[in-house]
């Protein structure tokens, strides 16, 4: 609650500012090894170059600070002891491309080089050794082609269809006297069959750079042109049971296609830069390649400013009412309302509910009416769903107290989100996180 408390008040200037310098002489790659394995060397460089401003060095803020220092950020400005308006925080806005076609599974839609390679692998004539080392990606591509030919170009959709698809793959295994040989590549193909109908998901990574929007525009041109509606190919393939030669050949085909796609995006980017009167070489080729490799993780995350969040009538009442009514989000949604109601309580009475032992019960009634007023303003009032009395009581019981461990959780999440934004990797939180330490649950709301 005090986090919310720090959001209201007047503008002011930093009371003090300091820069922390790490033990720079240390071999950084060793010191930060475990983090570099998460966000890469360029992520680490971004952290070391970042300058972070911390508002309010309370328990939550200092926990966030600690995690940021450990992550490798060296330069901080700490603003404490002063009131800061929401407006000072500005719009926290991270934009990514939202207009992109989703990545479609490539195995069911191969480019010519891959199609030729798959066609060239003849299972019927292959010797046993070769047969059992055909990479599963090739088996899946063959299976997808055959299935589509037999099903009006459609992919397996229903559960029985998908099961039949896997059975078809298994039926291709070699037999000895009617008993199927156990061929590992076919087993892999069956267990990876979902890659035919669903795009794979891997941990996202995306680098925002000064030329970011140029790259987004170039990507759009690629999708509309060479890509024929598809994103550039990522180019890496997972390990699969195969002979070295077959695997490396397949890998080469994927890499060549990824290189060609990246080159096409690069050409668009250079043309866009030139057209805008900028140096066509302003964006390094390596950055463009990196961008293409992670294009499928592009997301649009539009965060509201704190003023928008807390202003009158800011909530979409329908969404809030639905969250209050749904079993898995009811408690979190009620806490969201109560935290905001507690801030209003503070504005009205200059204290948080439950501040005095003798007034806890009276405060509960007052807090509840603040919550009801808030719900009414949001258009979420009335109806059966509301804010449970138990939770009203708990908010008063805690009296805006900050348990160290709850501050540690919330501060660490704040640090984590700052690291995502600084490194331009992973997907930042797209709303308000409510952490319910009583039930150990959380919800993210964008009302």
């Amino acid at each position, binding site marked *: 609650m005090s986090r919310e408390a720090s959001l209201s008040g007047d503008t002011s200037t930093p009371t003090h500012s300091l820069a922390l310098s790490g033990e720079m002489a240390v071999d950084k790659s*060793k010191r930060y090894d475990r983090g570099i394995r*998460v966000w890469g060397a360029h992520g680490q460089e971004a952290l070391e170059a970042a300058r972070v401003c911390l508002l309010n060095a309370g328990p939550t803020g200092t926990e966030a600070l600690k995690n940021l220092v450990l*992550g490798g950020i060296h330069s901080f400005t700490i603003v404490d002891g002063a009131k800061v308006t929401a407006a000072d925080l500005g719009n926290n806005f991270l934009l990514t491309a939202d207009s992109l076609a989703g990545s479609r599974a490539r195995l069911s839609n191969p480019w010519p080089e891959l199609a030729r390679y798959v066609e060239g692998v003849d299972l019927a004539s292959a010797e046993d050794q070769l047969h059992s*080392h055909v990479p599963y990606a090739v088996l899946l591509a063959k299976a997808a082609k055959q299935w589509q030919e037999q099903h009006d170009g459609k992919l397996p959709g229903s559960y029985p269809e998908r099961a039949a698809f896997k059975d078809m793959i298994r039926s291709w295994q070699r037999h000895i006297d009617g008993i199927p040989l156990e061929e590992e590549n076919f087993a892999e193909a069956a267990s990876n069959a979902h890659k035919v109908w669903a795009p794979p998901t891997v941990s996202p990574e995306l680098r925002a750079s000064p030329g970011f929007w140029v790259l987004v525009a170039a990507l759009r041109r690629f999708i509309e042109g060479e890509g024929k509606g598809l994103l550039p190919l990522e180019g890496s393939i997972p390990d699969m049971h195969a002979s070295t030669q077959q695997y*490396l050949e397949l890998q080469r085909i994927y890499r060549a296609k990824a290189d060609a796609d990246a080159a096409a995006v690069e050409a668009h980017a250079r043309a866009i830069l030139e057209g805008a009167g900028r140096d066509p070489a302003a964006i390094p080729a390596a950055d463009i390649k990196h961008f293409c490799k992670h294009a499928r993780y592009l997301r649009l995350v539009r965060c509201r400013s704190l003023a928008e969040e807390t202003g009158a009538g800011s909530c979409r009442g329908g969404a809030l009412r639905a969250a209050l009514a749904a079993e898995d989000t009811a408690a979190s949604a009620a806490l969201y309302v109560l935290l905001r109601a507690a801030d209003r309580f503070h504005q009205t009475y200059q204290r948080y509910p439950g501040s005095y032992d003798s007034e806890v019960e009276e405060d509960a009634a007052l807090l509840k009416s603040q919550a009801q007023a808030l719900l009414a303003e949001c258009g979420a009032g009335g109806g059966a769903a509301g804010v449970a009395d*138990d939770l009203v*009581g708990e908010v008063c019981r805690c009296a805006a107290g900050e348990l160290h461990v709850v501050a540690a*959780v919330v501060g660490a*999440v704040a640090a984590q989100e700052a690291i995502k934004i600084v490194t331009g990797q992973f997907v930042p939180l797209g709303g308000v996180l409510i952490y319910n330490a009583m039930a150990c649950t959380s919800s993210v709301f964008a009302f």
Partner: protein
Amino acid sequence: MELEGRWRDLDYLLTRQGNVVGPGFEPGPEIREFLHNDCRVLVVGAGGLGCELLKDLALSGFGNIDVIDMDTIDVSNLNRQFLFRMQDVGQSKAEVAARRIQQRIPGVTVTPHHCMIQDKALDFYEQFHVIVLGLDSLEARRYMNSVACSFLEYDEEGQPDLATVKPMVDGGTEGFKGHARVLIPGVTPCFECTLWLFPPQTKFPLCTLAETPRSPAHCIEYAKIILWPKERPDDSFDADCEEHMKWVYDKALARAAEFGIQGVTYQLTQGVVKNIIPAIASTNAIVAAQCTLEALKMVTMCSTGLNNYMMYVGTDGVYTLTTPYERDDKCPICSAGITFEVPPSTTLQQLIDQLVADPDLGKHLSAPSVSYGSTNLFMRGALEAQTRPNLEKPISDLVDGDGSIVHVNDRKLVAAMKIRLKFSGSTNGTMEM
């Protein structure tokens, strides 16, 4: 006074009645006094989670904390293990961590134990009210689980005797992912009940390494597993020795070049050889704080407890999932007795042989001893000669009847496995053949 202010927020919870509290919660100042003066908590592991746990426990009112860790401090710990400094490298994690917490947080006693968890006797572990695990290996977790379950006793109705329940809290992290869970033997699942939660470790088949390498990791494993023993049979490989690591890296690089495989780097070599798990401060902080919160709830009942497993994923926004996993009533570690069906004429020797041959139970047994209540039926070692004649006797002569529980002990087990004998063909519990 500074201390007064420090506990104000905790006192709101501990001294005020609430609506969302644990069973039997009675608010009052005695709770914090108990936390500070009498409650004993053990932190297992003084690494990324351990450092956070120690700070969190100390700042949550726990006054007597023990910490056990056999490791010494490495440079690569400094990105998250915030109690350690550059000049501490090479020193005991447990000792440095304990010293730093005591320096920073007055009034807290932290007792370090720089040793392996297996070095301590069971009565060491028995003195703690709650044990918090900040470990990075499944084996260590299983060991601590069997320690906690070893104290557990059931009453005659098969209900856990609460006085023998040793609660634990466990945390784990990998990159942006983590989990926190509570383990209350006899009440929640123990580790062994839910072993499937831990995915099997990826191990490459030797034939792939030797014949069909495809990835840089295959080349690195080849250099380490196949080339090292062949070319340096007299040296034992030491992952902390830079020359050894460099040797593996160079050999892997050559192997990769031979097959046209790209991507062998020194960093990857270290990662593969040492099975390095990526780790960052923020996830450790989240998981450790959650674990500490659960320890605080267990001891004070000031709020409802986690039931019983929380998963955390921070890559795509923030996602958590809280799941009430269920106990395995056939768990050899925490159940009141695993039913095992034999004809009453089975000799003790035959029973032992069948237990060892059982696909589930046999995993935990190599050379078992068997006892019934306070009677030793067959014991290895000093009592072997004395108890050997029992091996030829039918089991129905040695126990009271159908449903009797025998205790099976083994050096693979920390505590006895309880076997509930069900006599096949027997319907009324008599011992007639």
